[in-house]
Protein backbone atom coordinates (compact mmCIF):
# COMPACT_ATOMS: atom_id res chain seq x y z
CA UNK A 1 0.00 0.00 0.00
CA UNK A 2 1.50 3.35 -1.04
CA UNK A 3 2.47 5.78 1.62
CA UNK A 4 -0.01 8.57 2.40
CA UNK A 5 1.48 11.90 1.29
CA UNK A 6 -1.25 14.06 2.81
CA UNK A 7 -1.54 14.15 6.58
CA UNK A 8 -5.31 14.10 6.74
CA UNK A 9 -5.48 14.65 10.46
CA UNK A 10 -3.29 17.70 10.13
CA UNK A 11 -5.32 19.02 7.18
CA UNK A 12 -8.58 18.58 9.08
CA UNK A 13 -7.12 20.48 12.00
CA UNK A 14 -5.82 23.26 9.77
CA UNK A 15 -9.16 23.70 8.04
CA UNK A 16 -11.03 23.35 11.34
CA UNK A 17 -12.90 20.38 9.91
CA UNK A 18 -14.41 22.48 7.15
CA UNK A 19 -14.97 20.11 4.21
CA UNK A 20 -15.96 22.90 1.88
CA UNK A 21 -12.70 24.69 2.57
CA UNK A 22 -10.81 21.45 2.12
CA UNK A 23 -12.46 20.99 -1.26
CA UNK A 24 -11.53 24.57 -2.18
CA UNK A 25 -7.90 23.99 -1.23
CA UNK A 26 -7.73 20.76 -3.18
CA UNK A 27 -9.26 22.45 -6.23
CA UNK A 28 -6.78 25.31 -6.06
CA UNK A 29 -3.96 22.83 -5.65
CA UNK A 30 -5.12 20.81 -8.62
CA UNK A 31 -5.26 23.92 -10.78
CA UNK A 32 -2.07 25.57 -9.62
CA UNK A 33 0.29 22.72 -8.90
CA UNK A 34 0.99 21.56 -12.50
CA UNK A 35 2.02 25.09 -13.58
CA UNK A 36 4.20 25.61 -10.54
CA UNK A 37 5.71 22.18 -10.90
CA UNK A 38 6.53 22.89 -14.52
CA UNK A 39 7.99 26.32 -13.67
CA UNK A 40 10.23 24.72 -11.06
CA UNK A 41 11.30 22.07 -13.57
CA UNK A 42 12.26 24.79 -16.05
CA UNK A 43 14.20 26.72 -13.42
CA UNK A 44 16.05 23.55 -12.47
CA UNK A 45 16.81 22.70 -16.11
CA UNK A 46 18.21 26.17 -16.74
CA UNK A 47 20.17 26.05 -13.44
CA UNK A 48 18.70 29.43 -12.53
CA UNK A 49 19.18 29.54 -8.76
CA UNK A 50 17.03 32.68 -8.24
CA UNK A 51 14.06 31.15 -10.05
CA UNK A 52 14.55 27.86 -8.24
CA UNK A 53 14.38 29.65 -4.89
CA UNK A 54 11.22 31.56 -5.85
CA UNK A 55 9.37 28.62 -7.38
CA UNK A 56 10.42 26.21 -4.67
CA UNK A 57 9.35 28.67 -1.99
CA UNK A 58 5.89 29.07 -3.52
CA UNK A 59 5.46 25.32 -3.87
CA UNK A 60 6.62 24.81 -0.31
CA UNK A 61 3.84 27.15 0.89
CA UNK A 62 1.19 25.33 -1.13
CA UNK A 63 2.32 21.92 0.01
CA UNK A 64 2.56 22.92 3.64
CA UNK A 65 -0.98 24.26 3.53
CA UNK A 66 -2.10 20.93 2.18
CA UNK A 67 -0.29 19.14 5.01
CA UNK A 68 1.83 17.38 2.38
CA UNK A 69 4.81 17.36 4.68
CA UNK A 70 7.10 15.06 2.72
CA UNK A 71 6.64 16.94 -0.55
CA UNK A 72 7.10 20.26 1.25
CA UNK A 73 10.34 18.98 2.78
CA UNK A 74 11.61 17.81 -0.61
CA UNK A 75 10.92 21.14 -2.26
CA UNK A 76 12.38 23.01 0.73
CA UNK A 77 15.61 21.18 0.03
CA UNK A 78 15.59 22.62 -3.50
CA UNK A 79 14.96 26.09 -2.10
CA UNK A 80 17.92 25.62 0.25
CA UNK A 81 20.17 24.48 -2.61
CA UNK A 82 19.06 27.47 -4.66
CA UNK A 83 19.91 29.88 -1.86
CA UNK A 84 23.36 28.33 -1.60
CA UNK A 85 23.65 28.34 -5.40
CA UNK A 86 24.44 24.62 -5.41
CA UNK A 87 23.20 24.20 -8.97
CA UNK A 88 24.96 20.87 -9.49
CA UNK A 89 22.58 19.21 -7.02
CA UNK A 90 19.38 20.68 -8.51
CA UNK A 91 18.56 17.80 -10.80
CA UNK A 92 19.07 15.05 -8.24
CA UNK A 93 16.93 16.91 -5.69
CA UNK A 94 14.24 17.70 -8.24
CA UNK A 95 14.05 14.02 -9.24
CA UNK A 96 13.34 13.06 -5.63
CA UNK A 97 10.64 15.70 -5.49
CA UNK A 98 9.09 14.52 -8.75
CA UNK A 99 8.60 11.00 -7.44
CA UNK A 100 6.73 12.33 -4.43
CA UNK A 101 4.82 14.90 -6.52
CA UNK A 102 3.55 12.24 -8.91
CA UNK A 103 2.11 10.08 -6.17
CA UNK A 104 0.82 13.16 -4.32
CA UNK A 105 -1.14 14.28 -7.42
CA UNK A 106 -2.76 10.88 -7.65
CA UNK A 107 -3.68 10.96 -3.97
CA UNK A 108 -5.12 14.47 -4.28
CA UNK A 109 -7.43 13.24 -7.06
CA UNK A 110 -8.59 10.34 -4.92
CA UNK A 111 -9.01 12.50 -1.87
CA UNK A 112 -10.99 15.06 -3.83
CA UNK A 113 -13.44 12.43 -4.94
CA UNK A 114 -13.79 11.34 -1.35
CA UNK A 115 -14.33 14.83 -0.01
CA UNK A 116 -16.78 15.73 -2.77
CA UNK A 117 -18.72 12.53 -2.35
Amino acid sequence: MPKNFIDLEELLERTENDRELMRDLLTIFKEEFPQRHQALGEAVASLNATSVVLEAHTLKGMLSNLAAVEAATAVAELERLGRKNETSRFLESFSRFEVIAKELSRQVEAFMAEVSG
Partner: protein
Amino acid sequence: MRILIADDELMSRRLLEKTMQRAGYDVTAVANGQLAAAELCKPEGPRLALLDWIMPELDGPGVCREVRKRKDQSYVYMILLTSKEKKEDVVAGLESGADDYLTKPFDPEELKARLRTGKRILDLEDRLIEAREEMRFQATHDALTSLWNRGVIMDLLGRELTRARRENKCTAILLGDLDHFKNINDTYGHLAGDEVLKETARRLVSSVRSYDFVGRFGGEEFLVTLNNCDPAFGLARAEKIRKTIAESPVETSAGPVPISMSFGLLLSQEWGYMSVVELLHEVDTALYGAKAAGRNCVKLAAPKAQSDGAREFAPEPAWRRQ
Protein backbone atom coordinates in the same frame (compact mmCIF):
# COMPACT_ATOMS: atom_id res chain seq x y z
CA MET B 1 -13.37 43.94 13.13
CA ARG B 2 -11.69 44.37 9.73
CA ILE B 3 -8.53 42.49 8.91
CA LEU B 4 -6.27 42.61 5.87
CA ILE B 5 -4.73 39.44 4.50
CA ALA B 6 -1.87 39.82 2.06
CA ASP B 7 -0.49 36.68 0.45
CA ASP B 8 0.40 36.04 -3.16
CA GLU B 9 -0.20 32.33 -2.83
CA LEU B 10 -3.85 31.54 -3.52
CA MET B 11 -4.14 28.52 -1.22
CA SER B 12 -2.70 30.41 1.74
CA ARG B 13 -4.95 33.37 1.04
CA ARG B 14 -8.05 31.18 0.83
CA LEU B 15 -7.14 29.30 4.01
CA LEU B 16 -6.48 32.53 5.94
CA GLU B 17 -9.58 34.19 4.56
CA LYS B 18 -11.86 31.36 5.63
CA THR B 19 -10.21 30.94 9.03
CA MET B 20 -10.61 34.66 9.74
CA GLN B 21 -14.18 34.81 8.49
CA ARG B 22 -15.07 31.93 10.76
CA ALA B 23 -13.50 33.80 13.66
CA GLY B 24 -15.83 36.75 12.94
CA TYR B 25 -13.45 39.09 11.11
CA ASP B 26 -14.43 41.21 8.15
CA VAL B 27 -11.73 40.20 5.65
CA THR B 28 -10.05 42.13 2.85
CA ALA B 29 -7.64 39.90 0.93
CA VAL B 30 -4.99 41.12 -1.51
CA ALA B 31 -2.29 39.35 -3.52
CA ASN B 32 0.69 41.69 -3.23
CA GLY B 33 2.49 44.07 -0.91
CA GLN B 34 1.71 47.27 -2.81
CA LEU B 35 -2.02 46.64 -2.57
CA ALA B 36 -1.64 45.77 1.11
CA ALA B 37 0.20 49.03 1.90
CA ALA B 38 -2.36 51.07 -0.05
CA GLU B 39 -5.23 49.42 1.81
CA LEU B 40 -3.64 49.83 5.25
CA CYS B 41 -2.73 53.47 4.62
CA LYS B 42 -6.32 54.46 3.84
CA PRO B 43 -7.79 56.66 6.60
CA GLU B 44 -10.45 54.07 7.44
CA GLY B 45 -8.38 51.06 6.45
CA PRO B 46 -8.15 47.80 8.43
CA ARG B 47 -6.25 48.01 11.72
CA LEU B 48 -5.24 44.34 11.83
CA ALA B 49 -3.08 42.78 9.15
CA LEU B 50 -1.64 39.37 8.33
CA LEU B 51 1.21 39.81 5.88
CA ASP B 52 3.10 37.15 4.06
CA TRP B 53 6.82 37.82 4.18
CA ILE B 54 7.67 37.09 0.56
CA MET B 55 5.34 38.82 -1.87
CA PRO B 56 5.68 40.47 -5.28
CA GLU B 57 5.84 44.29 -5.60
CA LEU B 58 6.58 44.83 -1.92
CA ASP B 59 7.43 42.22 0.70
CA GLY B 60 5.86 41.95 4.16
CA PRO B 61 8.58 43.94 6.00
CA GLY B 62 8.31 46.59 3.24
CA VAL B 63 4.58 46.89 3.90
CA CYS B 64 5.31 47.31 7.63
CA ARG B 65 7.79 50.11 6.90
CA GLU B 66 5.31 51.91 4.63
CA VAL B 67 2.55 51.72 7.21
CA ARG B 68 4.79 52.86 10.06
CA LYS B 69 5.76 55.98 8.08
CA ARG B 70 2.29 57.36 8.72
CA LYS B 71 2.13 59.20 12.00
CA ASP B 72 -1.33 60.69 12.05
CA GLN B 73 -3.54 57.64 11.77
CA SER B 74 -4.69 54.88 14.08
CA TYR B 75 -2.23 52.15 14.94
CA VAL B 76 -2.20 49.09 12.68
CA TYR B 77 -1.28 45.79 14.32
CA MET B 78 0.67 43.70 11.82
CA ILE B 79 1.64 40.06 11.97
CA LEU B 80 4.18 38.67 9.51
CA LEU B 81 3.61 35.15 8.26
CA THR B 82 6.82 33.43 7.41
CA SER B 83 8.54 30.17 6.87
CA LYS B 84 11.74 31.88 7.95
CA GLU B 85 12.72 30.76 11.38
CA LYS B 86 16.25 32.08 11.69
CA LYS B 87 16.74 34.50 14.55
CA GLU B 88 18.13 37.23 12.26
CA ASP B 89 15.08 36.94 9.98
CA VAL B 90 12.71 37.33 12.91
CA VAL B 91 14.67 40.33 14.18
CA ALA B 92 14.64 41.92 10.72
CA GLY B 93 10.87 41.40 10.48
CA LEU B 94 10.19 42.94 13.86
CA GLU B 95 12.60 45.80 13.15
CA SER B 96 10.60 46.67 10.05
CA GLY B 97 7.67 47.53 12.30
CA ALA B 98 5.80 44.22 12.55
CA ASP B 99 4.22 43.55 15.93
CA ASP B 100 4.46 39.79 15.79
CA TYR B 101 5.29 36.93 13.48
CA LEU B 102 3.91 33.49 12.93
CA THR B 103 5.57 30.57 11.23
CA LYS B 104 3.82 28.96 8.27
CA PRO B 105 1.96 26.68 8.09
CA PHE B 106 0.02 28.32 10.88
CA ASP B 107 -2.12 26.69 13.50
CA PRO B 108 -5.62 28.27 13.41
CA GLU B 109 -5.96 28.45 17.18
CA GLU B 110 -2.54 30.03 17.65
CA LEU B 111 -3.28 32.55 14.90
CA LYS B 112 -6.58 33.53 16.49
CA ALA B 113 -4.96 33.85 19.92
CA ARG B 114 -2.27 36.15 18.50
CA LEU B 115 -4.89 38.26 16.78
CA ARG B 116 -6.76 38.58 20.07
CA THR B 117 -3.54 40.00 21.53
CA GLY B 118 -3.47 42.51 18.68
CA LYS B 119 -7.09 43.41 19.28
CA ARG B 120 -6.37 44.01 22.97
CA ILE B 121 -3.63 46.45 22.02
CA LEU B 122 -5.89 48.25 19.54
CA ASP B 123 -8.65 48.43 22.17
CA LEU B 124 -6.15 49.93 24.58
CA GLU B 125 -5.18 52.52 21.97
CA ASP B 126 -8.85 53.37 21.45
CA ARG B 127 -9.34 53.89 25.18
CA LEU B 128 -6.25 56.11 25.36
CA ILE B 129 -7.46 58.20 22.41
CA GLU B 130 -10.87 58.50 24.01
CA ALA B 131 -9.31 59.66 27.29
CA ARG B 132 -7.09 62.14 25.44
CA GLU B 133 -10.07 63.55 23.54
CA GLU B 134 -12.03 63.82 26.77
CA MET B 135 -9.16 65.72 28.37
CA ARG B 136 -8.84 67.92 25.31
CA PHE B 137 -12.55 68.70 25.49
CA GLN B 138 -12.33 69.49 29.18
CA ALA B 139 -9.37 71.77 28.59
CA THR B 140 -11.12 73.75 25.88
CA HIS B 141 -14.75 73.77 26.94
CA ASP B 142 -16.76 75.17 29.77
CA ALA B 143 -17.81 72.32 32.06
CA LEU B 144 -21.36 73.57 32.64
CA THR B 145 -22.44 74.72 29.19
CA SER B 146 -20.01 72.78 26.97
CA LEU B 147 -19.33 76.02 25.09
CA TRP B 148 -15.76 77.09 24.29
CA ASN B 149 -14.15 78.33 27.48
CA ARG B 150 -12.81 81.83 27.95
CA GLY B 151 -9.25 81.08 26.85
CA VAL B 152 -10.31 79.33 23.67
CA ILE B 153 -12.99 81.81 22.61
CA MET B 154 -10.49 84.66 22.97
CA ASP B 155 -7.97 82.72 20.94
CA LEU B 156 -10.56 81.97 18.27
CA LEU B 157 -11.57 85.62 18.21
CA GLY B 158 -7.94 86.65 17.72
CA ARG B 159 -7.51 84.24 14.80
CA GLU B 160 -10.78 85.30 13.25
CA LEU B 161 -9.88 88.99 13.46
CA THR B 162 -6.52 88.32 11.81
CA ARG B 163 -8.23 86.41 9.02
CA ALA B 164 -10.91 89.08 8.60
CA ARG B 165 -8.27 91.82 8.31
CA ARG B 166 -6.28 89.82 5.81
CA GLU B 167 -9.35 89.23 3.67
CA ASN B 168 -10.81 92.66 4.32
CA LYS B 169 -13.93 91.14 5.84
CA CYS B 170 -15.94 92.05 8.92
CA THR B 171 -16.27 90.07 12.14
CA ALA B 172 -19.10 90.95 14.50
CA ILE B 173 -18.22 90.58 18.18
CA LEU B 174 -21.19 90.16 20.45
CA LEU B 175 -20.78 90.21 24.21
CA GLY B 176 -23.94 89.24 26.08
CA ASP B 177 -24.76 89.31 29.76
CA LEU B 178 -27.86 87.72 31.30
CA ASP B 179 -30.01 90.36 32.93
CA HIS B 180 -30.60 90.14 36.68
CA PHE B 181 -28.84 86.81 36.92
CA LYS B 182 -28.04 87.36 40.59
CA ASN B 183 -31.77 87.70 41.25
CA ILE B 184 -32.39 84.43 39.40
CA ASN B 185 -29.90 82.65 41.65
CA ASP B 186 -31.32 84.31 44.76
CA THR B 187 -34.94 83.63 43.83
CA TYR B 188 -34.79 80.18 42.23
CA GLY B 189 -31.56 78.79 43.64
CA HIS B 190 -28.16 78.00 42.08
CA LEU B 191 -29.34 74.77 40.50
CA ALA B 192 -31.97 76.70 38.52
CA GLY B 193 -29.29 79.31 37.80
CA ASP B 194 -27.13 76.61 36.24
CA GLU B 195 -30.07 75.35 34.22
CA VAL B 196 -30.61 78.90 32.94
CA LEU B 197 -26.97 79.15 31.89
CA LYS B 198 -27.15 75.83 30.06
CA GLU B 199 -30.34 76.77 28.23
CA THR B 200 -28.91 80.20 27.36
CA ALA B 201 -25.89 78.46 25.83
CA ARG B 202 -28.16 76.17 23.85
CA ARG B 203 -30.22 79.11 22.55
CA LEU B 204 -27.08 81.01 21.57
CA VAL B 205 -25.63 78.06 19.67
CA SER B 206 -28.93 77.39 17.94
CA SER B 207 -29.16 80.97 16.70
CA VAL B 208 -25.75 81.26 15.02
CA ARG B 209 -24.27 79.67 11.90
CA SER B 210 -22.13 76.53 12.09
CA TYR B 211 -18.94 78.51 11.49
CA ASP B 212 -19.58 81.18 14.14
CA PHE B 213 -18.09 80.81 17.61
CA VAL B 214 -19.89 80.89 20.96
CA GLY B 215 -18.04 80.82 24.27
CA ARG B 216 -18.71 81.33 27.94
CA PHE B 217 -16.73 84.42 28.79
CA GLY B 218 -17.28 84.32 32.51
CA GLY B 219 -20.16 83.97 35.06
CA GLU B 220 -23.25 84.93 33.09
CA GLU B 221 -21.36 86.53 30.20
CA PHE B 222 -21.15 84.98 26.75
CA LEU B 223 -19.04 85.95 23.77
CA VAL B 224 -20.23 85.31 20.22
CA THR B 225 -18.26 85.95 17.06
CA LEU B 226 -20.17 86.17 13.82
CA ASN B 227 -17.50 85.41 11.30
CA ASN B 228 -17.25 86.82 7.82
CA CYS B 229 -20.47 88.84 7.97
CA ASP B 230 -21.36 92.21 6.56
CA PRO B 231 -22.34 94.90 9.08
CA ALA B 232 -26.06 94.78 8.25
CA PHE B 233 -26.12 91.04 8.82
CA GLY B 234 -24.24 91.47 12.11
CA LEU B 235 -26.76 93.98 13.40
CA ALA B 236 -29.76 91.92 12.31
CA ARG B 237 -28.34 88.69 13.72
CA ALA B 238 -27.51 90.32 17.06
CA GLU B 239 -31.09 91.45 17.38
CA LYS B 240 -32.36 88.02 16.38
CA ILE B 241 -30.17 86.38 19.04
CA ARG B 242 -31.45 88.80 21.68
CA LYS B 243 -35.05 87.91 20.76
CA THR B 244 -34.30 84.18 20.78
CA ILE B 245 -32.88 84.41 24.29
CA ALA B 246 -35.88 86.30 25.67
CA GLU B 247 -38.46 84.43 23.60
CA SER B 248 -39.72 82.12 26.34
CA PRO B 249 -38.98 81.40 30.00
CA VAL B 250 -36.46 78.66 30.75
CA GLU B 251 -38.09 75.57 32.20
CA THR B 252 -36.03 74.74 35.28
CA SER B 253 -36.45 72.32 38.17
CA ALA B 254 -37.63 75.33 40.22
CA GLY B 255 -40.22 76.32 37.61
CA PRO B 256 -40.20 78.58 34.55
CA VAL B 257 -37.68 81.41 34.74
CA PRO B 258 -38.09 84.39 32.38
CA ILE B 259 -34.76 85.59 31.04
CA SER B 260 -33.33 88.32 28.86
CA MET B 261 -29.86 89.36 27.80
CA SER B 262 -28.14 92.67 27.14
CA PHE B 263 -25.59 92.83 24.34
CA GLY B 264 -22.68 94.94 23.27
CA LEU B 265 -21.92 94.61 19.58
CA LEU B 266 -18.81 95.59 17.69
CA LEU B 267 -18.18 95.40 13.95
CA SER B 268 -14.48 94.88 13.46
CA GLN B 269 -14.22 96.66 10.10
CA GLU B 270 -15.09 99.95 11.77
CA TRP B 271 -12.19 99.74 14.21
CA GLY B 272 -9.07 99.34 12.13
CA TYR B 273 -6.05 97.67 13.72
CA MET B 274 -6.84 97.17 17.39
CA SER B 275 -5.90 94.30 19.63
CA VAL B 276 -8.38 91.71 20.88
CA VAL B 277 -8.10 93.19 24.36
CA GLU B 278 -8.85 96.70 23.09
CA LEU B 279 -11.82 95.52 21.05
CA LEU B 280 -13.18 93.57 24.00
CA HIS B 281 -12.88 96.70 26.09
CA GLU B 282 -14.98 98.57 23.51
CA VAL B 283 -17.64 95.91 23.23
CA ASP B 284 -17.83 95.67 27.01
CA THR B 285 -18.43 99.41 27.14
CA ALA B 286 -21.26 98.97 24.64
CA LEU B 287 -22.66 96.17 26.82
CA TYR B 288 -22.56 98.51 29.80
CA GLY B 289 -24.50 100.98 27.64
CA ALA B 290 -27.14 98.33 26.94
CA LYS B 291 -27.51 97.68 30.66
CA ALA B 292 -27.79 101.40 31.34
CA ALA B 293 -30.41 101.74 28.60
CA GLY B 294 -32.76 99.41 30.46
CA ARG B 295 -31.34 95.95 29.52
CA ASN B 296 -32.66 93.40 26.98
CA CYS B 297 -31.26 95.39 24.07
CA VAL B 298 -28.23 95.52 21.75
CA LYS B 299 -25.88 98.52 21.77
CA LEU B 300 -23.38 99.00 18.98
CA ALA B 301 -19.87 100.10 19.92
CA ALA B 302 -19.18 103.17 17.81
CA PRO B 303 -15.61 104.33 17.19
CA LYS B 304 -14.90 107.69 18.76
CA ALA B 305 -12.12 110.20 18.27
CA GLN B 306 -9.25 109.81 20.74
CA SER B 307 -10.08 113.26 22.16
CA ASP B 308 -13.50 111.98 23.18
CA GLY B 309 -13.34 111.09 26.85
CA ALA B 310 -15.89 108.27 26.65
CA ARG B 311 -13.29 105.54 26.63
CA GLU B 312 -11.51 106.98 29.63
CA PHE B 313 -14.70 107.10 31.66
CA ALA B 314 -15.91 103.73 30.68
CA PRO B 315 -16.46 101.45 33.64
CA GLU B 316 -13.95 98.71 34.38
CA PRO B 317 -14.95 95.91 32.01
CA ALA B 318 -16.33 92.73 33.45
CA TRP B 319 -13.67 90.56 31.85
CA ARG B 320 -11.01 92.53 33.69
CA ARG B 321 -12.91 92.42 36.94
CA GLN B 322 -12.94 88.60 37.02
